[in-house]
């Protein structure tokens, strides 16, 4: 049975009919074509599918699309504006915060939440904030440095 839902994603409103069992990540990728949000594990472990729902990060493989009805979503596609990288993306670029890049969209959404709540986090706080995001490449060291560099740039802005 299909349900009508209306969501705002990255400032744009969408109306679609979906099956209640459709996961939010499949909705974003397959219905809306927003493939920046990745699917790593599909089991709530890796965080590659992290997006913001009403300003809070969630693993979109563990939210039903129908649960987002009437709500506001932000995905990685909203982070850069007009081709200019966001300071967090600049940080990852400058400090080699990615290798294969698979975890990066989710990682950046988690960092966006962190720096929104706490503009000047300690290394421990950064590691705590990205506990729900797994990276198989970098060993996290460069990700932590990227976040520190982004925090510095954002405070100066």
């Amino acid at each position, binding site marked *: *049975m299909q*349900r009508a839902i209306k969501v705002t994603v990255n400032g744009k409103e969408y109306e679609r009919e979906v*099956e*209640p*069992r459709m*996961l939010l990540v499949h909705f974003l990728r397959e219905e809306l074509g927003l493939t920046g949000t990745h699917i790593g594990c*599909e*089991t*709530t*472990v890796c*965080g590659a599918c*992290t997006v913001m729902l009403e300003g*809070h*990060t*969630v*693993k979109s493989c*563990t*939210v*039903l699309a*129908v*649960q987002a*009805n009437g709500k506001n979503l932000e995905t990685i596609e909203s982070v850069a504006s007009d081709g200019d990288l966001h300071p967090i993306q600049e940080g990852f670029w400058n400090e080699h915060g990615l290798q294969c890049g698979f975890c990066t969209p989710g990682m950046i959404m*988690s960092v966006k*939440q*962190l720096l929104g709540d706490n503009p000047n986090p300690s290394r421990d706080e950064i590691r705590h*904030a990205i*506990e*729900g*995001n797994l990276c198989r490449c970098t060993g996290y060291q460069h990700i932590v440095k990227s976040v520190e560099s982004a925090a510095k740039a954002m405070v100066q802005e």
Partner: protein
Amino acid sequence: MIAASFDYSAPETLADALRVLSDDPEAKILAGGQSLIPIMKLRLSIPSQVVDLGGIIDLHAIAEEEGIIRIGSMTTHEQVEHSELLSEKCPLLVAAASGIGDVQVRNRGTIGGSVAHADPAADYPAALQALDAKVKVVSSAGEKIIPIDEFIVDALTTALEPDEIITEIHVPTESTGIGTAYETIVQPASGYAIVGVAARIGLSEGNISFARVGITGVGSKAYRALAVEKALEGQPAKDDTYGIASRVAAEGVEALEDLHASSEYRAHLATVFTCRAIAAAAGRAQ
């Protein structure tokens, strides 16, 4: 991984949600979805319909009246973690909430969902036991207030009937002279406790006047370590007392065994973390 088909409703009032449950015994409540959606994806749960409590605003409040803090069942782990009222009046619950999973899980998962799910390694049950908390459940027949010890029956099993909804968790406001602590060793991939110990200790003139110890992760359900509590009460508040009392932390409990810890090791960890939690709680009681 896709769940089997189901129907979905998002009622705006508790009465509407209760009506769906009493009409359809195969219906399942959806709170934060952080346990139910994974289980449905594995098709270990195949409900006919899912009743999403997310739209019922009344279930989100945290309020204190007449010595009781009422926490709405849809309060997220993140809201407990950052509640000013709770950090002042019930820091034990804040400590338990902030250790759950990761940021994304805490942003969605709820206290009602955690208690209803009754995972043997969940963080809240041990803390709620140490706090003498109660669970308020409502059905179309009326409401009940159930002590947490009676509510949690076994692994993934509670006293909840299929037509009942948890609406609130009740925690008594702490009196003075009582200290609390939550000490855990976690499974690093999930954040679930291998062993988690919540202690609530009252002191009077250097002696332990009151002790509550809840332990999660060790047995098939979180339990009150009554033998430890008995060994503490009336004794002087010092390390020797804590060490001796902690030895019986897993007494009479069949400790779980999995790839993270053998049964013997879990029982050993229970004694170590019980001692740490008691010492930390007693330190804060002074």
